[in-house]
């Protein structure tokens, strides 16, 4: 299912942040990065090396200072904000480290709401996704009634809700013990394969990334990172 055309291609991507004392810090400088459709890439990098910033730029919830992000033959940096919102709803699944879920919504509602932003909610498919992550009997639970591990699995089901082309996972296993983290990685990979989605999986813990054929060291990928 993987072909050779890149689904996502990043070039000369830069982002600076103003520190609290007014200094302008270059946080991210990625000369080039590519991922093919269906490809799974693990990214390992120290805390503070800019991994989250990178994913945020890819997801279009943060603006780049310069450079290009070509996604599915569209230039993300040239799209208007609302065009990016639509693109994100339809094509990008995002899982973050903690507090992923909307607290007032049940597991099922978290998934169907995501579907609403891309068009029509498909309850049957939402059921199926939750079953696939092993939560067939927890559909009507609110996040507070679920374990951290279960919450992450709801977030995974939600990320896949609109059959995205790519899933961005920002340390989704950070709060899990080793065994569960490994299981989570397997599940995420498996479901991305079933859905034909590319996967960028970020973790500071190299062990978790054992199952990835391609693992990039973010401290090398990101030229702005020193020490």
């Amino acid at each position, binding site marked *: 299912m993987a072909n050779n055309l890149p689904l996502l291609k990043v070039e000369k991507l830069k982002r600076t942040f103003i520190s609290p004392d007014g200094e302008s810090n270059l946080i991210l400088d990625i000369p080039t990065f590519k991922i093919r459709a269906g490809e799974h890439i693990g990214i390992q990098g120290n805390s503070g090396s800019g991994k*989250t*910033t990178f994913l*945020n730029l890819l*997801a279009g*919830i*943060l603006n780049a200072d310069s450079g290009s992000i070509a996604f599915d033959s569209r230039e993300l940096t040239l799209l208007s*904000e*609302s065009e990016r*919102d*639509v693109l*994100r*709803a*339809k094509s990008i699944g*995002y899982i*973050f*480290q*903690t*507090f*992923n*879920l*909307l*607290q*007032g*919504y049940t597991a099922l*509602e978290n998934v169907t*709401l*995501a579907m*609403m*932003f*891309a068009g029509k909610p498909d309850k049957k498919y939402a059921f199926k996704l939750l079953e696939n992550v092993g939560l067939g009997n927890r559909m009507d639970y609110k996040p507070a009634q679920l374990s951290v591990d279960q919450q992450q699995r709801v977030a995974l089901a*939600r990320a896949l809700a*609109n059959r995205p082309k790519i899933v961005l996972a920002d340390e989704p296993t950070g709060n899990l013990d080793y065994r569960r983290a490994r299981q989570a990685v397997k599940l995420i990979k498996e479901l991305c394969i079933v859905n034909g989605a590319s996967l960028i999986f970020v973790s500071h813990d190299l062990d978790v990334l054992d199952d990835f054929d391609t693992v990039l060291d973010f401290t090398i990928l990101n030229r702005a990172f020193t020490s």
Partner: protein
Amino acid sequence: MKKIFFIVEKSLLQHKLSTVITILSVALATALVMSVFSIRDQAETAFTGGPAGFDAVLGARGSQLQLVLNTVFHLETSPGNIPWSEYTAIKNNENVELAIPYAVGDNYKGYRLVGTTPELFDKFEYTKGKTFEFQKSGKVFNPYLREAVVGSYVAQKTGLKKGSTFNAYHGLYFNKNDRHRKKYEVTGVLKPTNSPSDRVIWVPINQFYMTEGHVLRGGGKEYEAYVHHDPRDIPDVHKEVSAVMLKLKNPASGFKLASSINREGKASTLAWPIGAVLAGLFEKIGWVTKILTLVAYIVIAVAAGSILASIYNTMNERRREFAILRVLGAKRGTVFSSVVIEAVTISFIGTIIGFVFYFILISLASFIIRKQTGVVLDILSIHPVLIITPFVMILLGAVAGIIPAYKAYKTEVASSLSPNN
């Protein structure tokens, strides 16, 4: 749109307590405002337009308002009496179509006895086209016998019915020691008229001249009542009446009569037109309405403020939720609208409940006014305030929502998602 309502519903349910409290404050505010305006206008209409049936009242020199309250509403005390000759004079006046004498001064358990003539029951229309009607086989009293016709409310409250007998008590307020001796016999009970007449016992005016303890001053000297057995034996010169109720030939007649009667030096007063006299009463209590109006506006403003505060207070804790929505693909506009619509929903539901409160309030007001005066409010009539207030409240709700909505609109997605946040 569907997703916005879904988000709104979830948010309202997530903050149930503050939602409920805010909705109640909106409901109370709308109900209060609608009630203040509606009850005021309903009351004014009911008092000034409805129950008179007469065009003018002739009575002793004094306040026209007191005269009207005393005769039309059977409230307050009588300003005094006028000689029988005034009654016969006005009855024969070319401007007058119908003149009916009233005499007051006795009560039965607090319900007034009004002495009058049988004409009241066949010629007088208490509202357009309607004369008094009797329940079952009731009939008018014989003007020369000690008989009585009972208003429906009095009958209901006292249990008097056809064939009952009762003693009258002296004065307009009940005191059990002031009992008059000779009993009245009830000849009939009137059907409800929804007017102050329901609270009255009608007796032949002659019987007032034959009740012991009553003194007749019509002739200038005091003349002890109760010396005759047949009222026809009482010389007219001694008789007096509390008021003469008038139906005039045309509006111009009222003007002519008023200008000749209400002049300096005359012993009597013509209250005319009755509606205008009562409108004066509402003008006098206008400051009360002004204060209530002001309070109503403040309450509305406070309700709008409470919508703003209740939503604004949740903004910080919801920052992350907005960010998640954005990551899922919600547009800024969607987040903005969901907050505004949340505010509108609160004011909308509040307004609906406000209508319930309003009907409770106006029914209560109507009940009290009816109990006190016999005047009935038309509580189902649609006052413009019933349309304007909800409209304004919902608009204010939307405006109150804009400030927090703007904050939600501005949510920084990336930084709000950071685990430290």
